[in-house]
Every structure is written in structure tokens, then in C-alpha cells.
């Protein structure tokens, strides 16, 4: 059964799209990532023009983040105060990121820069997380302490001024690194067209020492707003948000996310981190191979607005 996408201007198999949405939704619910870094490459692989894939991916992530964040809110695993502080930096970063995006496009080779950013970030974040979580899984197997929050051990982050109390997270932390983290991820959101959860989650866990349970809900909460902002900007500048495609992905994604959240709740923190690490690393390696391996077709054609 096919459906015509009015903005992408092509017909797609409705079940393929629904399947993609459900699979990505499940993973995003389980690991607390928006899924943008999965859905965008998948759509491009299915011949959706990249400009439409990036913009529509952001739109879809809004829905999966809303439903995921609400589920976490009910369970009390969402720190709204922390999320709002992150958001201040996030929106500022997204604004700066849009300027960088336009600049890169003027210079040409935007696709290459995006691919390289994906490979570098996914590869390093995934590798570091895998290393850490495998170590804690090994320690857990030997019945040693698996807590990331070693009492009495503070890093440089905890010596910064402007401290604020985050009750939900049981933290007393400076707002500077939180806003800075939000800002950096805001830039990546606009340039790479992703929510940034795959960087946000590990950064909150390892740099800010926020408990894993709170991290996922809070990350989803701030992703809602940053991706909503990106969607509106993409719609007004590139006219590339396909609402039909986005809605199909959303419906399947929201259903998948509900099951993902439940599975995630049954897993231990270090297992979740190892799973997310493998997923992030896998996508990073896949994109890296595309850059290095000789392509099947070394020519490409662009005609009209979004390519053939």
C-alpha cells in the first residue's frame, strides 16, 4: 500500500515508514534518545531527499519526546528545573547553530561536514560509553559497587560558582556547565538535524554525575523544545517538513516508544548504557564506512529543489 508525500513529492510504502517509526520509537523510549540520529539516515536510505529527511526527522522527534517525557514525568523521573536550565542554553545554541549551518552551506560540502560530525560524535561517544559500561558490568559481576556517584569524589565541575539545588536529581550543581552543555547540543541540533539525546545522555551521566534514571526523562523534556524550534525554522527557511511523512512516523513511533520505556524500566542502568553505546557506535561505524568504502555509484544527480 503506497501513500504520496506532498512535500517530498514521491510515493512510499506506508508499511515501511510505519515499521521504521515503530522500531526507532521503541529504541528511543528504551534509551531516552529522540531517535533523530537513527530516523534521518534511515529515511535517506529509503530515498527520501536528505533535506526533507532532516527536517521531518526533527518533527517526528517532537512527538516521541513528548510521549516519552510524559511517561517519565508520571514516574517522577523528570527534573523539570534541570531541563529548563538546559533549555536556556539549548535555544541559544540552536540559534547560533542555524547561522553556522547557513555558513557551511555557502562554503559547499555541507553533506561531508555533517557526515564527519556524525562519525566523530557517534564514534567517540559510543566508544567511551561502551568502555565504561562494560567495566561497570564486570564490576557488578564481581559484586563490587556499581554506583557512578562515588561519595567524596568530586571533579572540576563541582567547584564552579552559581550553584543551584536540583531536588529531583538530588544534586547541588553550578548552572554554568548545564547551560554550556545545552548550548553545545543546541548547535549540534541545528547543524546535524538531531535532538542530541545521544550526546546529552552520556554527558549528563559522566560529566555532571546526574543519576541515569533522571537523565533520560530530563533529556527528552528539553529535546521536545529544541526539536520544535528546529521544525519551525526548517519549515520557514527550507519548506522541507513533510507533515504526512512525519505523522506516519509519529504514530508508529509513539506506540513503539511506550513499549520501549517499559523494557527500559526493567533493565539496569549499566545494561541500558551498554545497549545505547552499541547502538550509537553501530550507526557511527556504518556512516564511517560510507565515507571510506568505494561507493557503488560515484556520481550523483541533483535536479529541482530536493534532488531527483
Amino acid at each position, binding site marked *: *500500500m*503506497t*501513500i*504520496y508525500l*506532498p*512535500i517530498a*513529492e*514521491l*510515493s512510499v510504502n506506508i508499511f515501511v515508514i510505519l515499521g521504521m517509526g515503530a522500531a526507532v520509537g521503541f529504541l528511543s523510549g528504551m534509551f531516552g534518545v529522540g531517535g533523530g540520529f537513527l530516523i534521518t539516515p534511515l529515511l535517506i536510505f529509503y530515498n527520501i531527499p536528505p533535506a526533507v529527511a532532516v527536517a521531518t526527522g526533527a*518533527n*517526528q522527534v*517532537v*512527538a*516521541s*519526546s*513528548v*510521549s*516519552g517525557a*510524559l*511517561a517519565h514525568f*508520571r514516574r517522577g523521573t523528570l527534573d523539570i528545573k534541570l531541563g529548563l536550565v538546559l533549555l536556556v542554553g539549548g535555544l541559544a545554541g540552536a540559534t547560533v547553530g542555524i547561522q553556522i549551518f547557513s555558513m557551511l552551506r555557502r562554503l559547499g*560540502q555541507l*553533506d*561531508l561536514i555533517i557526515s564527519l560530525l556524525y562519525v566523530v560524535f557517534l564514534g567517540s561517544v559510543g566508544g567511551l560509553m561502551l568502555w565504561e559500561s562494560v567495566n561497570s558490568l564486570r564490576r557488578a559481576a564481581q559484586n563490587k559497587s556499581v554506583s557512578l556517584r562515588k561519595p567524596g569524589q568530586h571533579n572540576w565541575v563541582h567547584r564552579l560558582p552559581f550553584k543551584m539545588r536540583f531536588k529531583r536529581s538530588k544534586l547541588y550543581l553550578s548552572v554554568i556547565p548545564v547551560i554550556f552543555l545545552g548550548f553545545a547540543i543546541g548547535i549540534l541540533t541545528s547543524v546535524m538535524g538531531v535532538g542530541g539525546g545521544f550526546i546529552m545522555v552520556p554527558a549528563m551521566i559522566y560529566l555532571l554525575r546526574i543519576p541515569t534514571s533522571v537523565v533520560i526523562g530530563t533529556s527528552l523534556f528539553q529535546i*521536545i523544545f529544541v526539536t*520544535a524550534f528546529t*521544525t*519551525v*525554522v*526548517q*519549515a*520557514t527557511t527550507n*519548506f522541507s*517538513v513533510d*507533515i*504526512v511523512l*512525519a*505523522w506516519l512516523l*509519529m*504514530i508508529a513511533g*509513539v*506506540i513503539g*516508544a*511506550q513499549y520501549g520505556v*517499559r523494557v527500559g524500566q526493567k533493565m539496569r542502568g549499566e545494561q541500558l548504557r551498554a545497549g545505547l553505546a552499541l547502538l550509537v557506535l553501530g550507526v557511527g561505524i556504518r556512516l564511517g564506512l560510507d*565515507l*571510506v*568504502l*568505494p*561507493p557503488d*555509484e*560515484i*556520481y*550523483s*544527480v*541533483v*535536479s*529541482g529543489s530536493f534532488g*531527483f
Partner: protein
Amino acid sequence: MRAAVLMCVLSLCASLPAMAQLADPPVTVNEKFSERIDIGISTNEIAITSDFSGADITVFGAIEGADELLLATFAYDVVVALEGPRATSTVRRKERVAGIWINRHSIRFEPIPASYSMSSTRPLPNIANLMELASRDIGIDNIRLVPTGGVGDGSRLTEFREALRRIKQASGLYQRDPTGVQFISKALFRAAVRLPANIPVGQHKVRAVLYKNNQFVMEKVIPLRVVKTGLEQFIYNFAHTHSFAYGIVAVLLATLTGWLGSIIFRKD
């Protein structure tokens, strides 16, 4: 019976109002021959609905004043092509730089049909010589690809042209059926032309060309509009004319879907 079909075909042609809008002359004639070709299609508009997955259109036509003997010896050949709106194309070539494959060279070509679906009575080389076919842009391999702007060293121009044709065919936008035109009675023929699912919207044209003993006799062109309809048209217009409101609606729809989803699945 033949007269009745011909009448029907002609009346269809006469009722096409968009004919005058075409830039090309609707008829090109070689005065050496007295034979004439005429074609008709059941509709002058293809509507892209939400379940559009490509379409087959049948073009009916007739050869007027055809010689009975020549018809019997298959001396007449017909080529029917559906050409999409013209658009410029940029072909890029990847090269390995420091171990990474990146786009290095590009050539931009003057507007060519965005889609091209062709049917003929026989394979094109049997119908006419290459020069003749190329002069009329007939056949995927004969569509003129003229580079614009700087070509660089130009030594790869042929490769770039071949790549453009190859990619257009791989994506289904360029198609050919060398036996798609069939004579249903002596001088009446039927041509099946396939429209791919990714057909571009806009003004298309159906071209029918008659050859007699490898010589050009006449070309007839009729317009065919491919349009979005209903909801698809509304969404497209809304996204382009009220883009900010469209963005807000997209975000609200996403929020609503996410919220409803979390309510429906709220069991625990």
C-alpha cells in the same frame, strides 16, 4: 469501425484546451510525404492522489493516408514519448581524498526532461539513424545534454552524461519499451506509456513521431498535466505560502500525537 475510432480520437484532440500553451509547435511535418499521424489520450490531466503509485496511460493514434502495401510490410514506425517538465541537473562525481570519498567535480546541464517514458514499434536503431533521432531528442541516449558554465578539463564530459542517463533510468524516471507501440488494426495503433511513482508534477507532453522507411514524416505533440489534488495540493500550498503557521501546526500535531499516545497507553 476504424472510422468510428478515428472520430473518437480526433474529438479528444480537439477538446484539449491547453494545446495553445505549449512552447513547441504541436505539429511538425515533412512535406515530402502525404501521410499524417494523429493521437489522443483519454485524459489531459493526471491527478496525483494520496495512493498514487504510478500510472499506465494508453495513447491511441492513427496514420492517415497510409499506403496499404507499406502498412502490410511494416514500413511505418511510431515512437510515442511522454516528456516531463524541463529542469536543470547537476551531476557530481565523488573522488577519494585522504581516504574519504567526497564530491569533487560537478557539471551542470541545461534543462532536460525531468522524466522521459518512451514506447516504440521497434528498437530505435531500426527506426531511424542516430543523427535523425538526436536532432529530435528521441530516445534516452539521444536526449541532448548540454553543459552550462565551466566544464573543467571536459575530458570526463561523456562519463558525466552517461552517469546522468544511468541514474535517471535507475530511479525509474527514464524508461523505454521498444515494443510498446502496437498496431491494433491496419493504420490504428496503441501505445502504453508508464508514469513512475516519483513523476514530477507540472506540464508534461505526449510526443508521437511517425517514420516511414527510416524517414521522418511527422510529429504531433499534445499536452498532459500532472497535478496534485485535494489534500496533497492543500498541504503543499500551505507549506509554501504560510510556512511559519505550517511549522507551528507540524509541532502542535506532533505534541498532540505524543500526548494522546501516552494517554492511550497509560495502563500502569
